[in-house]
């Protein structure tokens, strides 16, 4: 039993932009340690005012290099390392995308900083509606995907493109 996975990121903007296709095949019984990142490139001055980072769905793709995935060769050859996109302002703050490119030239993670209003939620038991009231938790977890409201469109795409340009896409 082997598992094949392909992941791609594209945009719905006019320019056709397929950012990466990752194909890997891995025997489940013999996990191989992921290689440590070799080069860390951080040449962009810290422009964002330290907002909190959000883990994007593609952020947990640390995976052993494919042992026998011939399709790896035909993929776009991005430089391995970590690349920060430019910090792009939108009316609510700064968006900055960081991508990690693994040994196979694939994007293994895309994280972004988002505006943070610094508002903290309070739990306030109140009138019961038809949905049952629950405790609002703030948990960290390993997930496959994130569902959330987005206003990162243009800023996110711009910053992501800049990060990709640096990676040599």
């Amino acid at each position: 039993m082997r598992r094949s996975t392909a992941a791609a990121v594209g945009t719905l903007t006019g320019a056709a932009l397929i950012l990466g296709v990752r194909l890997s095949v891995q025997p489940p019984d013999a996990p191989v340690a992921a290689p440590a990142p070799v080069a860390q490139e951080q040449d962009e001055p810290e422009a964002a005012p330290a907002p909190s980072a959000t883990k994007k769905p593609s952020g947990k793709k640390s995976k052993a290099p494919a042992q026998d995935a011939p399709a790896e060769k035909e993929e776009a050859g991005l430089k391995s390392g970590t690349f920060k996109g430019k910090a792009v302002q939108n009316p609510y703050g700064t968006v900055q995308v960081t991508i990690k490119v693994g040994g196979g030239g694939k994007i293994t993670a895309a994280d972004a900083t988002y505006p943070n209003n610094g508002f903290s939620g309070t739990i306030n038991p109140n009138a019961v509606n038809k949905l049952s009231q629950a405790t609002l938790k703030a948990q960290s977890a390993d997930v496959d995907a994130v569902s959330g409201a987005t206003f990162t469109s243009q800023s996110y795409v711009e910053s992501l493109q800049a990060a990709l340009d640096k990676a040599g896409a």
Partner: protein
Amino acid sequence: MGTVVSIELADDLPASSLADLVASTCAWLHEVDARFSTYKDDSEVCRFRRGEIAFDDCSPDLRLVLNRCAELWMDTDGYFDAYAGGPLDPSGYVKGWSVEVASQRLALAGSRRHYIGAGGDIRMRGSGPGGRPWRVGVRHPWEADKFSWVLSLTDGAVATSGTYERGAHVFNPRTGTPASGLRSVTVVGPDLALADAYATAALAMGEAGLTWLAKRVADGYESAAVTDDGRAFTSPGLPIAAS
């Protein structure tokens, strides 16, 4: 529309097949953008908006989208309104619908296990990595790097609308003022287009949306919501992952 789309295929298929499936999915999404964008003067939506083509001459896809928008306007008591901003803008339906169709097309082409995420709205099919259900985090409305809920599901859609990321981008079409009362609404159900529209409509309704959402459970749409003052609400069948 400027939305970033992620596609993950978890099928045990040859690499070339997977690459073809991704390519055809991207082609479909670009086609949708070309035909339905309100930012492209030559899109079908813009031509219809200017009266250059009549409803009966529109493509079957556009007629379907317009009909669904009209149905949703009625089903949401007017809170889902493709004309809320003035001229026709069906983007609020088109995004979820295009991903829903993309997933159907993938299934027909042989992909039984995948997810497609578009700007925080997700459609998944089959089991996820390792054969377990997909785990979907619902973003915490104040702590961007945390989740208020972690959901576990195989087939289905998860859509979230919130006022926290884009500020006041959802308006109450009855008053013309920014939606308030609810900070985040997540809807889980079989069809992403509907889940997305329901989440947006409930957000526009404010706290009254909690009661409205409770009625959608009978149709197979579960929900979770957080009020502006931090109270959290869930429907009974919300597929919360065991921790």
